[in-house]
């Protein structure tokens, strides 16, 4: 069994899982200073609030309006009548308090880095795909590929999610209050998934790394996924994260099942600079 050398990131609770026979991890130095700059990132004031009525707008017009409002310093934006439209709220690269008063279609809140988003309805496929940092809370259900390829941030669905949640996930946390479908955590490479309900077949199939916690029944494990022992650190982390997720559900954390990769995989394990930023 490979043992991890103690590092500050572990003390912070970022990496606590027991790795069994896997490749060497190279952790970043949290003290390291880095300067990131995005062209379309704005300084906004959370106290400046505005509303966008999306009723007769297409997704491009809605996203243009969000950008325009952010450029004027609005830090709290409410989208009314989103009507399950696709690709709404994508590419937001700064802090923002975005409130979606309704449901979104596919690819909502994709490729974001920093905003806090609340969606009072449901989301379609691939919500928050490629998210780097921020927090997205979905009050109702979500479609498949929830949090596909996210690299950081917290993605929370209070209802149930479809198949392949956390597919290709490279960091961050996904928390689901209800059930999840087949192939949850498929090809997951880092980060954590917490499912409080039941999970469908092939959980963690082709899992490279990362940890999946399940509160309910697991239909079956996928290739490369193995059960691991819950630690006190896991329980402490779960308690903290569940508080952040605002899911009002009594959970016996010690009875949750922990799933990790049981296979040794090479040369995927260096953190990317953007992931470092998300983790910091």
């Amino acid at each position, binding site marked *: 069994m490979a043992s991890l050398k103690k590092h500050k990131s572990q003390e912070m609770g970022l990496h606590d899982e027991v790795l069994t026979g896997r490749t060497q991890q190279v952790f970043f130095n949290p003290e390291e200073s880095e300067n990131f700059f995005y062209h379309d990132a704005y300084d906004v004031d959370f106290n400046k609030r505005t509303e966008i009525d999306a009723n007769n707008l297409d997704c491009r017009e809605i996203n243009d309006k969000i950008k325009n409002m952010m450029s004027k310093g609005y830090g709290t934006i409410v989208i009314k009548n989103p009507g399950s439209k696709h690709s709404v709220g994508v590419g937001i690269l700064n802090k923002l308090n975005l409130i979606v008063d309704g449901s979104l279609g596919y690819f909502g809140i994709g490729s974001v880095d920093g905003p806090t988003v609340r969606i009072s309805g449901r989301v379609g496929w691939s919500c928050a795909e490629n998210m780097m940092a921020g927090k997205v809370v979905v009050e109702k*259900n979500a479609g498949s590929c929830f949090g596909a390829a996210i690299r950081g941030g917290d993605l929370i669905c209070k209802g149930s999610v479809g198949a392949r949640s956390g597919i290709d996930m490279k960091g961050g946390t996904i928390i689901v209050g209800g059930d999840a479908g087949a192939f949850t955590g498929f090809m997951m490479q880092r980060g954590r998934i917490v499912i409080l309900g039941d999970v469908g077949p092939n959980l963690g199939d082709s899992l490279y790394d990362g940890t999946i916690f399940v509160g309910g029944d697991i239909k079956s494990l996928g290739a490369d996924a193995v059960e691991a022992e819950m630690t006190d650190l896991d329980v402490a982390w779960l308690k903290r994260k569940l508080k952040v997720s605002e899911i009002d559900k009594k959970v016996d954390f010690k009875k949750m099942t922990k799933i990790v990769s049981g296979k040794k995989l090479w040369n995927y394990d260096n953190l990317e600079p953007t992931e470092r930023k998300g983790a910091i």
Partner: protein
Amino acid sequence: MCGIAGIIHKGKSTNVGGEMQKMLQSLKHRGPDSTGYALYGDGESNNYILRFKVGENVKEGSSAIMEDASIYEARKDEVNKKIEEAGAKIHKQAQITPYSFRYVISYKGGDLLDLAKLIESVEMTEILSLGKSLELIKDIGDATVVADNYGLNKFNGTHGIGHTRMATESGVDIRSAHPYWAYPFSDVSVVHNGQLTNYWNNRRTLEKKGMRFMSSCDSELIAVYLADKIRSGVELKDAMRGSLEDLDGVFTYLVATKDKLGMAKDHMAAKPMVLYESKDLVALASEEVAIRTVLPKEIDTYDPYEGEVKVWQA
């Protein structure tokens, strides 16, 4: 990609043609090549409604072979003779487009297969549907174009399914468009989104059993598969469950009968389906935007899971 949609009202007849037109038009981006409707109306007492075509739509973008339109009239006369030859009687006949027709017929014969075979013996003739409440309409163009051309916006009924097609594995023509009638069973239709990878194995097996295929579209296999099971006395829901084991690939499909609407999703759950259910109706579609066209309010929807089969009663 393709888009599929369906709606069923529980115990109520309404403007289901208009509803399906709105739902399918909102899915145009998923399939711009052709649109099809399977609508379940109030019927014509004990008579059958026969929808058939004697040629293809050869407008720009079609992959069908150009024909002189004058031949359609001769084919229609030939069909009329075949109907009489089968012992059926034509009560009403309407020419909807130069190549497609809607008849109301009575048929006292035992097996619809005999009647269907005779009609389809006429060159280029294909029965789109033959049922007591089903009317199956499909053509090249988006949902609005097809609904306008066939007068579907005023169609009343309890339920319907429909399809917007992006042609990937067969031609842009009516015969490759969905829905498919589960020949020769009256009032059974299917729409499908996905790919079937064991199409030829299943097709050969079913053809050996005498089942007929009109296209090389993999989606037709589902209709024929279900027809074969129903012919063997298998209940619809059980036949659908069996399809999840026997058909390989990624797929979500809808099936409708005279008074039921069902959905099935394969074990990979790779094709989308969003579902809304209330005490009055069930609406399903590849995307929630389609459901919102008939229910323009905040609604609770969900994605059915892998391997799920559901059937609802009108």
